[in-house]
């Protein structure tokens, strides 16, 4: 059985990578963009949608029983080998 926290740890690691690239992307846009409303609108929209997805995921995590795990069992088979 693979405990669910293992998958959560993998998810958290990927999220850290995502956060790093998201921060760099936003900084690049704010640093090099020509001053105008689209810089703020696009960056704001990106942050708001990301925040909503992360919040919904976090709310879901509160309802999860983390003591469970993924059962890996090989299917039982009765094979007769033809002679």
């Amino acid at each position: 059985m693979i405990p669910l926290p293992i998958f959560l740890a993998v998810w958290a690691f990927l999220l850290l990578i995502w956060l790093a690239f998201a921060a760099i992307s936003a900084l690049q846009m704010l640093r090099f963009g020509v001053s105008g409303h689209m810089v703020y609108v696009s960056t704001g929209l990106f942050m708001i949608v990301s925040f909503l997805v992360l919040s919904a995921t976090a709310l879901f995590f509160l309802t999860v029983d983390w003591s469970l795990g993924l059962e890996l069992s090989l299917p039982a088979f009765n094979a007769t080998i033809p002679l």
Partner: protein
Amino acid sequence: MFDLAHLPNGAPNEKAVVLLRRHWFTMLSLALSFAFVLLLPPAIYIGLLLIVPDFFSDSVRVTLLVLGGSIFFLFAWLFLYQSYIDYYLDVWIVTNRRILSMEQHGLFSRTVSELRLHRVQDVTAEVHGFWRTMFDFGDLYIQTAGEKERFIFEEIPHPNAVAKTILDLAEEQRKAHLEEAVEEFGMPDGKKQAASST
């Protein structure tokens, strides 16, 4: 961030005349692809709900689906944002004195080139293809006398009108430079001799 009123290395009386980016149509296919990718997690959810309703009775499977779906969506959303940044940060600015070309290549590479208008030798606008003709966008090639021999404005709207604008501005700059040179150095020798003989 910079604004058009305060360009990098700007001269005191320099004003931005044209600000150009790629035509919005060039982003359309990318936007449609991303729309499809972003809709995949909810589509898979609805598909499983209809085809295998018992799937969601197992809380472990649901948790794994949420973990995978959320991180997939976040990365797809990030890539869409980065594609928009790549489009938005590619800018060509024509002022009354020079042409600025700022091109973003990926996230960590940026090229900024500058060309004085009086060095512009030739401007060619090209519009090829059905969609480009319908929406009037194409490429602009600027032949220069500078270190970088050719500037290319890629997939800009109304390239013929922009070409005319650049040529008119370049002509004005060449006249202004000629007047300054005559004021500072006087007329060329040949014309002085011709003037003195008459």
